[in-house]
């Protein structure tokens, strides 16, 4: 009996000690295992796994990250500089009044199921976005399309109901993905597109493997065997890089480890541009955030520079609104709400919302937990008692916060390109911003000349920010750490897509 219990005592104590030791051992890591891997294979470490592979019905940027430009292609694409480039369309012409687009499509393009890609598929794909088959909220980007017709197998004519500055750019994102008429039966697990890769396997909770296509219409990629490994934990992904299990960690989520990689010659560290905004979302339709003064108080209460420094090791840019500096209508609005806790308290007093308590739904993502602690501390300074409720991401968070909008405050990384309108110009979106002030302005700007578009959108963004619809904390850096020999890394996150086809091993 005695021996038994002292052994148990020893075992439990040892377990506690071992936990500490094991953790410290992880950090020591092992040397990178050289690159004796085959030169046509690469393993990429990611955090944040897709629920399935069907972005037409399921939200979450992890899906287009894998499949766009790799499995699916669009008529056009957005290159690493953020410029529009032809993809499945060789060229296009726009009518005088800006409403009719004539696309000339590449000949000899096939889907991975062997079917030819023709203008009929493009008609099918665009009309499908407008149909009930698409559930994802981004489908509104296709609302402006009035009709689409296949003039011949390689000629496509799209007629818009009004001129639109945004539409063609949006066609370079996943709403513009081209599907095969016969290949949409099982989008969740078997995506069929015209891209250079096909999905070989999808092991939920672990990895997705992609294989290069022999019959790809364009230039075949150097790397034909791509494994995307999903880590629940950011530190685990960088440990895997150190131990040689992965070759690159994309969108690295442990910024405090960057310094160690920077000083190690075996690795390269890239800080790519990004469209990702860390959005402190406030539910505009429920108390206390249905009062603009309370939302403005939050804006004044948060020291965004301190958030970046403390939560993300100083990596990140203050932008002041939900527009990335790489977008044409970017305007520096950071001085609209300087850090001013005194002003925040005044606004709260005015709104009769002193010493309020709120619930803060925090998705289980590294940036979210890191940001939430400092946000809570800063809100406490002005008398807002935010209690953190952890929401498992993606399933629970997407359901509770995003779909049902059953929340008061949350924080999320919004990575979609030019997503300010998708986020705020839709009162049914989970933010619930009353868009009556901006709706007409948005249409006017989109239909106007490029100059009118830029100035009009700047107005819209300023209005949204003045209404403190939600607080954009900072622009999220796209940190990439990779083995030094890996070349062709598309480190600029211009859309959600992680473009794999350029990857190559150098000597």
């Amino acid at each position, binding site marked *: 009996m*005695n021996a038994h219990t002292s052994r*148990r005592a020893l075992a*439990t104590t040892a377990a506690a*000690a071992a936990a*500490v030791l094991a953790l410290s051992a992880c950090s*020591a890591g092992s040397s990178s295992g050289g690159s004796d891997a085959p030169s046509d294979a690469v393993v990429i470490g990611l955090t944040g796994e897709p629920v399935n592979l069907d972005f037409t019905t399921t939200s979450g940027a992890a899906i287009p990250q894998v499949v766009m430009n790799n499995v699916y292609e669009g008529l056009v694409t957005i290159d690493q500089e953020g410029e529009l480039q032809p993809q499945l369309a060789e060229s296009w012409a726009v009518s005088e009044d800006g409403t009719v687009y004539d696309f000339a499509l590449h000949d000899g393009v096939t889907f991975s199921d062997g079917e030819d890609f023709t203008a009929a598929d493009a008609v099918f794909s665009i009309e499908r976005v407008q149909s009930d088959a698409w559930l994802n909220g981004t489908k509104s980007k296709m609302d402006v399309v009035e009709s689409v017709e296949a003039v011949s197998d390689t000629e496509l004519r799209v007629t818009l109901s009004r001129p639109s500055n945004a539409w063609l750019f949006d066609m370079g994102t996943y709403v513009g993905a081209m599907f095969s008429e016969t290949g949409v039966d099982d989008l969740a697990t078997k995506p069929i597109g015209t891209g250079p890769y096909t999905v070989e396997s999808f092991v939920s909770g672990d990895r997705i493997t992609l294989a290069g296509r022999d019959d790809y219409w364009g230039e075949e990629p150097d790397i034909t065997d791509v494994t995307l490994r999903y880590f629940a934990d950011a530190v685990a992904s960088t440990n895997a890089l150190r131990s040689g299990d992965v070759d690159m960690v994309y969108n690295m989520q442990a910024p405090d480890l960057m310094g160690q990689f920077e000083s190690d010659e075996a690795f390269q560290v890239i800080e790519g541009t990004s469209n990702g905004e860390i959005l402190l979302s406030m539910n505009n339709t429920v108390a206390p955030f249905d009062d603009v003064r309370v939302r403005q108080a939050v804006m004044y209460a948060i020291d965004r520079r301190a958030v970046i420094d403390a939560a993300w090791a100083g990596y990140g840019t203050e932008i002041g609104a939900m527009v990335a500096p790489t977008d044409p209508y970017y305007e520096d609005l950071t001085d609209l709400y300087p850090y001013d806790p005194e002003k925040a308290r005044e606004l709260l007093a005015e709104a009769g919302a002193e010493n309020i308590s709120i619930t803060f739904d925090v998705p289980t993502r590294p940036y979210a937990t890191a940001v939430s602690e400092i946000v809570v501390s800063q809100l406490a300074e002005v008398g807002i008692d935010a209690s953190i409720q952890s929401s498992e991401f993606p399933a629970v968070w997407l359901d509770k916060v995003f779909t049902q909008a059953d929340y008061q405050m949350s924080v999320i990384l919004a990575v979609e390109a030019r997503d300010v309108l998708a986020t705020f110009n839709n009162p049914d979106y989970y933010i619930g911003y009353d868009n009556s002030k901006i709706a007409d302005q948005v249409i006017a700007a989109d239909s106007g000349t490029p100059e009118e578009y830029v100035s009009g959108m700047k107005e819209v963004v300023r209005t949204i920010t003045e209404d403190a619809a939600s607080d954009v904390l900072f622009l999220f850096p796209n940190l990439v750490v990779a083995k030094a020999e890996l070349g062709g890394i598309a480190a600029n996150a211009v859309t959600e897509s992680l473009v794999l086809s350029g990857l190559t091993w150098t000597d």
Partner: protein
Amino acid sequence: MATSLDTTESVGMPVPAPSIPGRSRRRSRPGTQLVVGAVLIALVALVALVSLVWTPYDPVATVASDRLQFPSAAHWFGTDRFGRDVFSAVMVGSQITLIVGFIAVGIAVIVGVPLGILAGMRPGRLGDVIMRGNDILLAFPGLLLAIVFGAVFGAGTVTAMVALGIGSIPAFARVARSGTLQVMKTDYVFAARAANRSEFRIALRHVLPNISGMIVVQCSVNFGIAVLAEAGLSFLGLGTMPPTPSWGRMLQESQQFLGSHDYLAIAPGIAIAVAVLGFNLLGDGLRDRFDPKMRSSR
């Protein structure tokens, strides 16, 4: 197996001489385990009490300019990524640790002990039903139960405490039942029954006082388990919600700093080790004093 057990016993624990003087000397002097365990627990309890009224810094106040400072005279255990004082956080973390331990063990005692006594006093069908139900619960890993509870009812300290408490019920029910079975065979229980005392009165007057020693020992052991489980759950993000300091979450948050700021993991790690070791040693020490079987065997 038996031989290896014997070896462990003779190596790990000096077997007291079976002579009468040896036995009385042992009983008059508390064992080393008891003393060390009690001191460690007293230390944790003292820190928790002090932290109620005083900590060097506000443990949840973030000071961006004081980020990731190494241990110094100003910050004994350094500061974390948010510029919070680690020493203050470790101090306040002891509160959560003790509260979780108390509530979890409390739930297990309040439910488990009466069930065990009932099963022991009614060894027929009722006892069987209780103990088989108990076995089913015992087969379910406590930590897994806590994770399931966290997923269903939302993660948090309360969920963790209740789940860990429910998970510990079988241990108490078993101990209480086996103790009760022994007590029920004693002459004074036969006498009480002959005197037509009610069953409830027998349970209260005879059974409970006689098994209380074993229960206290079990409490101490389970307290240690609860402390470790709370740390594990918080490490997984299913225990105490930030920013309330919790040792397990401090360990979790220290992960990406292990290479550069290892003190962030060492401080809460030592705190967890001290608390768990303390409760286990205390449990062993108490067993030496209380367990009737141990007493009779010596």
